[in-house]
């Protein structure tokens, strides 16, 4: 270990641009054994493992890096899977540069340990060798219902099943995974990776009810009455809207809807809107990771151009630098310091472009807070066949909650106590629907915490 002194940080290799834009398959190559062991050997094994501390799941990172270095593959797999319900997923989708790798002691000039890539390697390598997560089967008479099969729900299910508790998941979509399946594009996260986990959970005793929307297809109180406890993990699917003229016009989409649509098509699900993007000009408003995903999806769908417009400058982009670079490589165009003023429509009322306005960042000399100011007279037009807004998420109102005594705060978030229990006893909530839009890994952490509390209340 501590080989950072001799070995440089190596990141995951992206496939050739010309290759990878052809399809929605995983756009990068996983680490091989040599990559993983040599990169793992760079770890210092700190006395204060900042990576572990920063990780919402508090993954045992230094431990499995060490095990990887010593080629104790099963040990690494066990350690990694103990704290994390799906390490091969978080390894792929976590913004490590903001979490573990960002706080890695070596991330001060030496180059952080490539924690995410190794995390993915550990599980994939173990799967290749035939290892699987272990479950005891249903060993108790306890039953728990989970609403939503996104990362929070799947995480909770995993930990509950480990305690031998019977779990039923109710999912409104036809495929499980929530945003893992419908929002994260396949080139980042192959859908088989998600379904593989779900299948193991099913083997372990998970009952999965797909296409069942609670409050619509099935009553909430029916669920909670037939289970010893329930966990609400319905995510936060509402989109923040720009509040400008014509924002509801055809050919204007919210990012999440765009991504879901694209994914549904790939999965062969029936869709109402079957817009083809071939030879079309796409404009994405927003500068986060979701915006990058939309751009890359558009490129893969054959768009003529995919352009991103962001109201601040490049260095202020909220997403990961890595995603930005990849999108740029794949041909996305970027325009900074501009904000939409109105959507231009044709005579059919369909969107055909945007009226934009230049922005400038002003710093308040006292509070040093930055604010965005529009530059007067700087309007310009941008043509577009499809406009996608990637401005972040807000909650979508779910009536069944309030109706059943589950309190919701003014932001639309479910109110819980320190055990993640809602105002309705034995009903727990976690993930985006409770905390607001956040990461896969935080949702997974919530699911784990809720499960642990449910286990404590039911079994111990």
């Amino acid at each position, binding site marked *: 270990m501590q080989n950072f002194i001799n070995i440089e940080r190596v990141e995951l290799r992206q496939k050739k641009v010309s290759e990878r834009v052809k399809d929605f398959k995983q756009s990068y190559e996983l680490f091989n054994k040599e990559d993983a062991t040599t990169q793992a050997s760079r770890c210092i094994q700190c*006395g204060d493992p900042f990576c*572990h501390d920063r990780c919402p799941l*508090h993954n045992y990172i230094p431990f499995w890096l060490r095990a990887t270095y010593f080629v104790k593959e099963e040990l690494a797999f066990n350690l990694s899977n103990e704290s994390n319900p799906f390490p091969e997923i978080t390894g792929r989708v976590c913004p490590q540069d903001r979490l573990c790798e960002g706080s890695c002691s070596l991330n001060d000039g030496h180059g952080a340990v490539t924690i995410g890539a190794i995390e993915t390697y550990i599980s994939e390598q173990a799967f290749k060798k035939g290892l699987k997560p272990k479950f005891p089967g249903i060993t108790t008479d306890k039953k728990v219902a989970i609403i939503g099969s996104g990362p929070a729900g799947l995480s909770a299910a995993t930990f509950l099943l480990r305690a031998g508790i019977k779990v039923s998941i109710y999912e409104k979509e036809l495929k499980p995974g929530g945003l893992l399946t419908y929002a994260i594009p396949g080139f980042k996260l192959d859908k088989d990776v998600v379904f593989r986990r779900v299948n193991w959970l099913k083997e372990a005793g998970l009952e999965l009810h797909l296409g069942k929307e609670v409050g619509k297809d099935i009553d909430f109180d029916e669920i909670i009455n037939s289970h010893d406890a329930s966990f609400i993990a319905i995510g936060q699917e509402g989109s923040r809207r720009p509040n400008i003229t014509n924002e509801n016009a055809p050919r204007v989409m919210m990012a999440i809807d765009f991504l879901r649509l694209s994914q549904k098509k790939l999965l062969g699900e029936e869709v109402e809107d079957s817009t083809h993007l071939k030879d079309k000009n796409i404009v994405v408003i927003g500068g986060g990771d979701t915006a990058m995903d939309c751009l890359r999806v558009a490129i893969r769908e054959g768009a003529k151009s995919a352009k991103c417009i962001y109201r601040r400058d490049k260095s202020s982009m909220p997403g990961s630098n890595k995603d930005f670079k990849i999108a740029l490589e794949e041909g996305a165009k970027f325009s900074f310091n501009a904000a939409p003023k109105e959507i231009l429509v044709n005579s059919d009322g369909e969107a055909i472009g945007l009226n934009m306005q230049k922005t400038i960042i002003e710093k308040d000399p006292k509070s040093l807070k930055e604010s965005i100011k529009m530059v007067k007279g700087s309007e310009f037009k941008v043509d577009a066949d499809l406009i996608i807004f990637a401005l972040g998420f807000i909650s979508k109102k779910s009536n069944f909650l309030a109706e059943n005594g589950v309190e919701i705060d003014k932001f639309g978030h479910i109110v819980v106590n320190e055990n993640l229990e809602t105002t309705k006893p034995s009903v727990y909530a976690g993930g985006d629907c409770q905390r607001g839009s956040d990461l896969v890994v935080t949702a997974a952490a919530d699911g784990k915490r809720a499960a642990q509390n449910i*286990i404590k209340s039911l079994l111990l």
Partner: protein
Amino acid sequence: MDRFKSFKDSCSFGLLANIENIPSFQNTTDAISVLKRMTHRGSMSKDGKSGDGCGILFSLPKEFFKIEAKNLKIDLPKQYAIAMVFLQNEEQKRVIEEICHENDLKVILYRNVPINSKALGDEALKKMPKIVQIFVTPKSLIATKRFDALIYLARREIESALKDDEEFYIASFSDKLIVYKGLMMPSFIEEFYQDLSNPLFKTTFAIIHQRFSTDTTPSWSRAQPFRTLAHNGEINSVNSNLFHATTKGKRIKSQIFTFGELKKLLPITHNKQSDSAMLDNMFEFLLLNGIDFFKAARSLIPAPWENAPHMDSSLRAFYEFTSASYEPWDGPAAVSLTDGRYVGCILDRNGLRPAKYIITKDSRIIVASEFGVIDIDEENILEHGSLQSGQMMGIDLKFGKVMKNEEINDYLKDSNPYTHWLNQNLVYLQEFVEIPFSKTSDYELENLHHLQRFFNITQEVKELIITPMAKDGKEGTGSMGDDTPLASFSKKQRTFMDFFKQKFAQVINSPIDPIREKIVMSLNVGFGEYRNVLKETPNHAKRIKTISPILMQEKFEILKSFGDESKPRYNQAYKNKAFSTLFKSDLKGSLEKLANSVVRAVKEEGVRVVFLDDRGVNEECLAMPMAMAVGRVNQALQKEDILHKASIVAITAEVFDAHSSACLIAYGASAIYPYLFYATVFNECKSDENSLFETKTYLKNSNHALGQGLLKILSKMGIATISSYKNSSLFDIIGLCKEIAKECFPNSHLLIPGLSYEDIETRLIENHKKAFLLDKVQKTFPLELGGFYKYLDGGEYHDFNPSVVHAVHLASITGKKEDYEKVKELINSRKERMVRDFLNIKSDRKPIDINEVEPVEEIWKRFSSAAMSLGSISPEAHEALAEAFNTMGAMSNSGEGGELPSRLKSFKNSKIKQIASGRFGVTPSYLRSAQEIQIKVAQGAKPGEGGQLPGHKVTPLIASLRYTTPGVTLISPPSHHDSSSIEDLAQLVFDLKQVNPEALIAVKIVSTAGIGAIAAGLVKSYADKIIISGSEGGTGAASQSSIKYAGNPWELGLSEVQRVLKANNLRQKVLLETDGGLKVGLDIVKAAMLGAEKFAFGTLALAIIGCKILRVCHLNRCSVGIATQDERLREHFVGTKERLINYFTLLAQDVREILATLGYTKLEDLIGRTDLLKTSNKKFDFSEILHYEEGINRWGKRVNKPFDNNEFEKEILKEVYKVIENSRENIVLHKDIKNSNRSFGALISGEIAKFYGNEGLPENSIRFILNGVAGQSLGAFLASGITIRLNGVTNDYLGKGMSGGKIVIVPKKQGAHYFSAGNSCLYGATNGKVFIAGSVGERFCVRNSGATAVVEGVGDHACEYMTGGIVVVLGKMGINFGAGMTGGIAFVYDKEHGFIDKLNQELVSAMRIDMDEADEARHFLKRLLLTHVNETKSLKAQYILENFRQEVRYFWMVRPKDMMKVPLKPEDGD
């Protein structure tokens, strides 16, 4: 014993005798002279007259007493004895008479001893008893025959009858001896006891002693000699010896005393007296019971025989036989003893005390701590020698014969057919084991994971503790300090052994190096009962033995088979029975039941080996903490007086490191079978698919590592053998309740009493529940991760957790108050984690405006950085610290390891210079550049241990600063080799005060129970400042168990020191500093209130300059460029002096704000104010910490001046000053010198270094021609330009730390049999030349790194830890030559072909030089010998040179194995 009243003592001693047994008054006056000439080895009260006590034991001057009695109208009969008694009242006389009467004795006379009380100081006068000699004669015929026995019996009875009269004391009661002693300085003894100046007071021999005690309320009775001996040193194993004395006592049958009489004599000794007095009790008991004088002596203080291959096998047999009955009274010791007929002197097994002897032509013998204690014409000297490690010499006064070590050994080994007896009766477990670790069935445990969880084997423990043991056979190494709460305050699962903190030697005694000096160490243990130790029969050899207390399956099964009636090997002497330590509920009751059933089995079933077994923990059953079980059972057996029959063996899962093993042994286990530990290793091997061979090796390594770790723990306390460690209780217990301590661990100090049996049970139940959670929840990874050693989310609390580190970084970068508030918030809201968190401040004043509070600058003056050497940290970090602390007007601490000469006179000079056991870079200019010199006796992270700077870290820069060779591993010994006792430390303080009279001398010690007494001793050694280091203190590298388990939090040590110093009226004489985890203002204020006036920062300072608590300091991979010398890493260093100043400004502001709220303007006014601290916690008892002792609270701002003013050298300095002023001049001075003229040369060298640095003056600028016997530390820290030529001999520590110049010692009589200098000469020398035409004592050239020396003979352990320089030995040498020697060269002339056996070949090899390839070396040697002849006229060297062609073949050249090229510079040979 109450540790607030406890004391430790050490001293100087001597013995002189007329070998022909002819009494003379000369002998009496000589004895007094010896005592006076060693005054500097004692200590003095502030009245200048009261000492800690001194005295002389004389052969009875019969003529004198006859006349004295006659004057009192009594004609003395032929047979009489005199009791020398310290009386308080007449009632006591009545008791004495009565008891004498009952014992057939008759009091015939009371003689009031004529005294002159003016000779006493006030302190002594206050306590002066009435001193009376009581003359007693036998009353019956029987009494005539049993006179000795009856006197002894009567004395013991009187003592026990008057045991409540604390001051009552019988100094001696004998018909052969009489003791005159008291609380005066040696120079006043003669004046006080007028008898001693009466020319009729003619004696044939005398034993002399002067005491140096740590207490300031010494008593008359504690003065030595005792009735049979005088002891200089410290018996580290005394707890164990005391315990065993009681155990053995129960089995004793005496041929002298009847059963009824014996009952009155028991217990043989008790703990209300000093260790030396206990040894005296034991020795006297053996003598009076008819044990031969020499056997008794060697039974109690044996030579090291276990690992001494050079020892005669029949002598080994004697020792092995004796070891069944006696464990060594171990520790540094020079003891003179007598029974009236024989007088003897014996040295401890490691030769840690000096004992020098002279035999004269007119039949006198003098043994003393120093040479030169009486004036003897050199012509009259027949022999001039020194006892070596473990040797004894004696005088048979009856036949007028001196018996040397060999003669005594011959006598001992032939006194009984020991070899035969052993062959018949003794078995070794090993004999029955074909291949150890080939059986593994015990290690295949079904519920392994459950057990590991219950017994707290986490993944972290596996990786950091167990794996290193299995792989490398060594304990795992860690770094930085321990920032976790005590087990008692923890909310997490902790092992029970966490409540125990290891004891260690510091100041009053010294640790041993168990690696380099393993020759004295032993882990031998035996099973079988103690027989009557007063007899020697073949049956006494009936023992099962094994070389280590750590058993494995094979040995365990064999041991079991010996006690199993169904097995053919069965022998009822080893009958065994297993007792399960499992329970379901009611821990306390279950323990009681266990103890009762063991007692019953030993009493009624004849069980002799008790297995306490915790196997079988399941979902219903928990295991009692094994230490509790062992302690409880052991105490029960002892209480029932049957412990001598039984041995306890712990079969336990709780032991997986050396600390836990040591705990069990210290509380009574004879052996341990750590099955879960092996199972863990075995399972790991299995999952790694290791081969059978590998698995076996790993298991073997693990066993070995536990053994090595045990050795380290006992050596830390200065104990060499496990038999003297067993039952020693050498731990402090923190946080258990008094009831548990009393019932299970009564002989340990209990600090912060708290948790009850029920609390422990609750914790066990929680652990158990958590362990068996596995059955409820399928875990992918079945173990807990840990968090005890490193931070983990959900694991143990760490004070330097990631949030704190981030906050400290941010605050230090921005210097903003709001960022500092974050640190404060994190630390102050941590809740009850550290001791200080339980102490709340309740001020007696109203808040004041902050502007009234003293400024930041005043607070800064109290700050310093903790010692971190250049070497342990990078030059950038080291310099940033120096600059920042200098800017603040605070002080940075160099750590030991030298500093660039260019820095010494610049702003980057560290004001504190440290001197540690390695003496690396400790030169006159280094010492002279300091405002404070800090002697590091111990450090918080690893008290009692040495260290190592691996060769790869020794860059050219480091090497140059440390005066060594790049790439050569540097070993720091565990102890200062010029300080194994308090009077040695006083000498070291004296040396330093000479070389730098302007600096304060500080001593750094580590918090432990009993530290108050040590601190008091330090004040009396003239230290100016004492640093109480806490267990939180960091380190560059130490074994994990040392970081965690040795040393207590500073709060405990500091409060004890404050209290004891105040009680002894010493507080105003010293400054107190503390360190260990201080971070925020509240820490500082609380530390001040507990007594500290200065504060040091180690880890915090590093965190400020970028440290991220990586804990990899020992790997040279510090990614932030602090703890590394690697240039690539150093580029990443981000620390600046500004960051340090930023943080310390905020911290000082924080202190100011607290002062304002408390209504105090100055921190000074809060020092020692424990009266303002309160606790609201009900569980734990903090009353000892919060105790407020009346008295002065802080330093009186005056230097602690030694009573020896060193006028001698001061006068000489005046004479040579013109040469220092004008370096082109030179001077030759002729002077007479005495042994009381100590450290000669240091004062002048310091003065030279002040102006010229280490360059010094041109060679021979100042030449001294001295005549006489020089005192200790001649030529210490000698600077270039000084030449000392001594016509005579000198004492210990010649040329220590010399950095240049030349010392030539020419005794009148030359040669190997003429000792001309003492122990530890040239310790830490960096340069210079020494030529001695005679022999020297032990540890010659220890840690020499550059001096060249030629001597004609050396004692044991020569060239130990040497890293450079050249040594030529022309004659006899002792054992263990070149241990730990990683550099330099030695030439050894070995005509008798005995050298190779004495060479420690671990690191060095010897080669011949009479061949072509050694041409260079040969000629170098020749040149050096020529110089030796020129300087000393050495006959031996001359002979060798004249016959060089023949004689050169007898030379060996010794050099380190990994040093390829011989670094000989021809010019050094001239």
